[in-house]
């Protein structure tokens, strides 16, 4: 491709030839021809050597908001200099360059290498790809520019952030009640003895082992084996309506954060966690425990995008048969635009599940991006309150989650309903 300088030279050459013809000036025509010849000869000298590019990432998977360290190794594999070569690593617009630069101007000798290092911040969850690497070479007089790509991509998955969840708010009301519950060899809430330990302020007095106190003179408390809560089911609403708000703050984004955080919390306690994501179709991860399940859940949540209008009742109808009897069910949904939510919740409660509805307040998310008249906003809020009240009346625990509220703070409301 010609540069501006080349275009000027070419146009100038043509102009000189034509004006030379007009005024019968041979020198002017020769000068014009010289310009044109200069362009032509320059256009023959282009390209660069065979360049090899290798990219190394600090991690393939990371959490939203984390930093990614990237190193690009550029090696000249040809037997000639690269001349002035610009190297640019294409990174997604959703990533922020935190330090370093993703480009460099090089002139590599044969066999020579150069490293480009930079750090990216990843503010959005999702599946991303870094690359290809763009190369731009200029000829000696900067008359021509050649651009090409090295088709080298590095895929990364950005998981949703994991928020701290306090155990107290999520303790099961009926430990070890359900079929399949197992005793775990970890300390926690339960009935079987695990070990003795020293008293720390805050321990209930009823746990103090008075015999041990009498024997040793130190306050000792009994620790119990934790009983498994059994399977936990998380239903995440990823319908199109869940995009209300900004890219960083919307019901779906908060829903993925809460789903990931809850899954992390329960899996850490060695519970089984299942995840169902419903949008235009239903994606279901059966209950399982361990790091593998944790990775599966985070991967599924990383790729969630708002689409479709599947009603909740279709989800519960499809899955309720597979739910372990009496197991807790978390529904993360704004409950907007779906008239089947009360019936679905009532159905689940009727089947004996402990249903918690975590509902990001879509009206307040909408308020972040559009100007809702005050009176309409109040009426919309009233309608939403009615909806949540109906759900609470059905026997579910309902959490009205405001945009500026932290997850643990929102979960405290469980007790309020």
């Amino acid at each position, binding site marked *: 491709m010609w540069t501006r300088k080349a275009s000027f030279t070419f146009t100038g050459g043509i102009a000189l030839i034509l004006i030379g*013809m007009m005024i019968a000036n041979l020198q002017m025509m020769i000068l014009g021809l010289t310009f044109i010849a200069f362009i032509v000869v320059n256009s023959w000298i282009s390209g660069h050597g065979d360049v090899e590019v290798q990219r190394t990432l600090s991690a393939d998977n990371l959490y939203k908001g984390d930093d990614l360290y990237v190193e690009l190794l550029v090696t000249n594999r040809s037997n000639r200099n690269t001349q002035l070569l610009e190297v640019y690593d294409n990174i997604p*617009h959703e990533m922020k360059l935190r330090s370093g630069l993703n480009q460099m101007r090089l002139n590599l000798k044969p066999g020579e290498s150069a490293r480009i290092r930079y750090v990216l911040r990843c503010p959005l969850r999702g599946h991303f790809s870094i690359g290809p690497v763009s190369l731009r070479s200029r000829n000696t007089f900067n008359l021509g520019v050649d651009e090409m790509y090295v088709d080298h991509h590095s895929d990364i998955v950005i998981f949703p952030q994991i928020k701290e969840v306090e155990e107290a708010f999520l303790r099961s009301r009926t430990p070890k009640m359900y079929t399949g519950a197992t005793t775990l060899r970890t300390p926690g809430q339960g009935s079987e003895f695990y070990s003795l330990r020293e008293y720390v302020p805050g321990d209930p007095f009823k746990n103090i082992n008075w015999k041990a106190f009498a024997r040793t003179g130190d306050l000792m408390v009994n620790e119990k084996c934790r009983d498994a809560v059994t399977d936990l089911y998380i239903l995440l609403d990823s319908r199109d*309506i869940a995009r*209300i708000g900004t890219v960083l703050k919307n019901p779906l984004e908060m829903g993925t954060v809460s789903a990931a955080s809850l899954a992390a919390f329960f899996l850490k306690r060695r519970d089984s966690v299942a995840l169902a994501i419903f949008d235009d179709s239903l994606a279901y991860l059966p209950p399982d425990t361990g790091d593998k399940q944790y990775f599966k859940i985070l991967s599924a949540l990383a790729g969630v995008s708002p689409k479709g209008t599947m009603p909740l009742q279709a989800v519960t109808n499809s899955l309720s048969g597979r739910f372990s009897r009496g197991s807790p069910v978390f529904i993360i949904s704004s409950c907007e635009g779906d008239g089947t939510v009360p019936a679905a919740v009532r159905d689940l409660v009727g089947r004996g599940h402990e249903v918690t509805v975590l509902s990001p307040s879509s009206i307040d998310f909408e308020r972040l991006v*559009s100007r809702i*008249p005050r009176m*309409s906003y109040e009426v919309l809020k009233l309608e939403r309150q009615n909806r949540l*009240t109906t759900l609470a*009346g059905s026997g579910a625990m309902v959490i009205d989650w405001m945009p500026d509220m932290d997850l643990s703070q929102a979960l405290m409301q469980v007790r309020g309903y």
Partner: protein
Amino acid sequence: MLEDLNLNYRRIGLQAAFWSVMLVLLLSILINFVNVTNTNQLSAYDDDWNDMSAFRQDIKDMGIQTNSLVSSPLLLADIEDPRNTTYILAGVERDTLSLPQFDSDGFITIAAEDGYSPSEIDAIVEFVDAGGTALILDDYGFAGSIAQAYGVRYTGYQLFDTTYVQELDYNYIWMCVQATPCGMNGSSIDPDTISVHERWSGASGEGAHPCKLMNGQSMPLEDAGLCAHHWNNGEISYNATYQMLLNNITALELIPGVNGALSEVSIRAVTSNEATVDVNGDGEIWVGNEVNSETPDLWGQFNLSIEACARKSCDPGEGGRIVFMADGSALINAIYDYEGFNDPNNPLYGTNECVTNNTKCIPENDNRKWALDFIAEALMSSKIGEEGQPSENAVVIFDESRHPQNALFADTYNTVYFLLVYFTGEGLAMLLLFLGLFIAFEAVLIKKRDPEPWRHVFSIIYYGFGDANRYTYYAKSDKIRQVFLSKVRNQNGLSREEFHAMPARELVSLINDPVLAKFAIEPGKYSLEQTVAVVKRIKAWGRT
């Protein structure tokens, strides 16, 4: 399905019709630039019987350079030595491209004249004014505009004369280059009526032909130079009689009251007094004492050759000259080189009836002698010691710009070349070209951008999702009422059925607020202020 098929056929038909029309239009344009029929004549660079290669070869043999002009006579302005240049135009078979240009008054005009644009005519006139020599041979072509610049007009009607060649037909007419007409004696020209070229013979006292000045000088043939065709038995033997054979001719007129570019205009050849002109072109001659619808044709004596010079002597050193002749084919190979044409053993220009049947042979004529004398006068060196030799820079230019070319796309090449010359020679076109160059520079300056420097842009597209239409819906009293009643129902733990079955009085007591009860039971119009107050009340309702 059937409808779809019909639609498809209709679409294909429409497409075919459209592209057919486009093709026809394209061909109609191309036909102007591509000589599909391959018809060409009067070219100095082709060697058919109707071309002029023999004449050009003779000129080359004289040691004179020959060039062709395929674009436009505008190039004559660039000739450095017009004095030693002869411009020959034989047959103007194509009109010029009508392009805008400045006229003599400085206004913009589109060339409407025959054959040549005003700028081209100006270039020819300026060339002649600068001492150049021009020979214009035409009959029914487009040379009228050049002739008019010198006060001469081609009538454009076919001329018949009694001095025609009986062995051939009435289209072949003898022209004697002399002041008085020659006559016939039987089937040949009466020798008693033959005279000499008025100027070249020296009878007028000045302007004698240079070969006449060398007349009687003994010299070898090699030294005879441009007068070699007058060399005979070791000396120059100049003879100023010219019996030229013309074919299918028209007549020339001096335009009354018009002063041409050159002051000395002389008639060099005329017809007999019994010549006629077929004005209406019906092939028949109807003449009378006056011209009317029944006798539209003309008769009498007409001009066949006119010469215009800067000085009476027509000395090339004192200014240019131009000669008009009423026949475009006076110098074609068949007539000019009649011996080669008639030669049954070695016909140079293909077979003809003379070669095969010994009929319709071209009679002996002086066309070659006249043409070579014309060249000799124009291009002979005036330096002492170079008598008879062509001048150092002698050039003959054949104007091929108005001849259809036989090579495929040659016409296209000529047209492109014409446009190039037009844009670099014509004032208005130069102005347009300057403007175009200026715009091109501006375009490059504005449009042409170097590749943007690479830069990472962190950009998260913020988008909102919401239905602004529903905002007004949620401000309506009916919707507010519905929301309020739902709140009442929820607050009291009633099912829909129970709530709907509830009497109004019981509902009023449940609400326990006269304003809200009225709002719930009596639908009506509420002002904005009232609605705002009601919503505030609903919000507060049930908290205690």
